[in-house]
């Protein structure tokens, strides 16, 4: 069972993602923000991270850089309400991005693809 870490500062998003992804058979853990995120990844060893781009205290694209530098092949899917982040070239270090929605079909598809690419599915 693949373990997914959902990082988002909005509680209802964490709950929504958590419930729906658990129904898909994933082991889901959550984090409120970027504080000690690298240590959390080191400790919990998720197979994939779903990362909010705009959090109150953290820039998800900076966190993506930190994750990529320390955990080279860990799949990261950016989750965002807006697609203006694509103007920032840092975003190309993500495996995929999805626009936040209550319909998680696209997110589930991208999770499956990213896990297949990393051989963790």
């Amino acid at each position: 069972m693949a373990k997914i870490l959902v990082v988002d500062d909005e509680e209802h998003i964490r709950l929504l993602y958590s419930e729906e992804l658990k129904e898909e058979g994933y082991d889901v853990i959550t984090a409120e923000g970027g504080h000690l995120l690298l240590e959390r990844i080191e400790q919990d060893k998720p197979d994939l991270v779903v990362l909010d781009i705009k959090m109150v205290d953290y820039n998800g694209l900076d966190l993506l850089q930190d994750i990529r530098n320390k955990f080279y092949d860990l799949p990261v899917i950016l989750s965002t309400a807006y697609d203006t982040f694509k103007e920032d070239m840092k975003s190309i270090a993500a495996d995929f991005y999805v626009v936040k929605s209550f319909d998680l079909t696209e997110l589930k598809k991208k999770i499956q693809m990213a896990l297949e690419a990393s051989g963790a599915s």
Partner: protein
Amino acid sequence: MLAYEENPGKVERADLVVGLSSHNNVGNVALPTEQAARGLLDHFGEKNSVIINCDNHSEDGTKEAFLQTPTEIPKIYLSTPPGMVGRGYNLRNLTAKAVELQAQAVIAVDAGVESITPMWIKNLGEPIFAGFGFVAPLYVRHKYDDAVANGIVYPMTRALYGRRVRQPIGGDFAFAGEMAATYLDHPSWNDRVAQFGVDIWMTTLAMCQGVPICQAFVGKPRVSQHDGNIVASDPTFSQVVGTVLDLMVHFQNVWERVKWSKPTAIYGFGMGEVETPAPIEIAQDELHQAFVEGFAQYKDLWETFLPSNINNKLGEIKELPQAQFSFPSEIWARLLYSCSVAYKNEVVEREALLKSLLPLFVGKTLSLIRKTERMSIQQAEEYIENECMIFEEAKPYLLSQWLNDH
């Protein structure tokens, strides 16, 4: 293939090597030499460094221009024998010298590059000392620049080996000392690699070795003495694309297991304002004409190795007026995959197949230009990313053809 060496500083060891590949670059070589020296002093002052000019026995005074450029960093000049010309030979000589010097990191830059700054040296070199095995460049490029990378090499390499390296034939890159031995000993070296196939060969070997790969953002657009026609002409086209196909044959056991693709780490942000690349003028009617004329020359050949549905589709595309010209990406991906199978099986003579691919590539380039002409650079990048997904989605087609067609 090394015929001549001049090592006035008698350098015997170096931690970091910057190599400048040249052929008749007397007017250009001083600039990258100066910029490399500044980059090495400013950012790698604690390292033992050397600048090497690896040259194709230039007869225009490149050697003298290089050695006479004043720098605080020692310099070495290497050359192939007279008449042995090829960028790959230069990089091979550089690699061999780097092994001899026991270098930990090698940065390779084209001596014709006019936009190099000391930051290029920093951003290409630092990731190697941070543990990466290969560093590819990430330039800001005009959306039509480097059409061979956009239309063939990037989508093919990404779909095959599962690693997203946006500019895999960028021309300027870095690799770790450990990779140098791999490059020197690898059995896939051939005549195409010795020429312009060398860039994709080095990138692909790094991917297949599984070393950590990084893309270094260098800020300034790449401006080179060699810039000109956006669609590479032969023999450069055949050398690059032929190397992609040769490597497909060699590394089947690697790519057949790869599904989808993964990003690479990015290095070098926070460089302030990024320059916008210069506009590129495109003669669309000439591209259209070259595509249409390709039918007269190659239609019979295409029918011997492309499936009939693709040949039929090509016929439909040919009939489109230029104002409505479009080359669907799904057809393009399957066409390239069918070409690669025919290349592997030597259904037709390989050099002839590569030559016949050029007008089709010109047509695909025209289609890409038309689709993206009102787009910003970023929007065009997204379009190319979507094209790459089409290649990844079509990979089962490649596998079925490759494994079943003998």
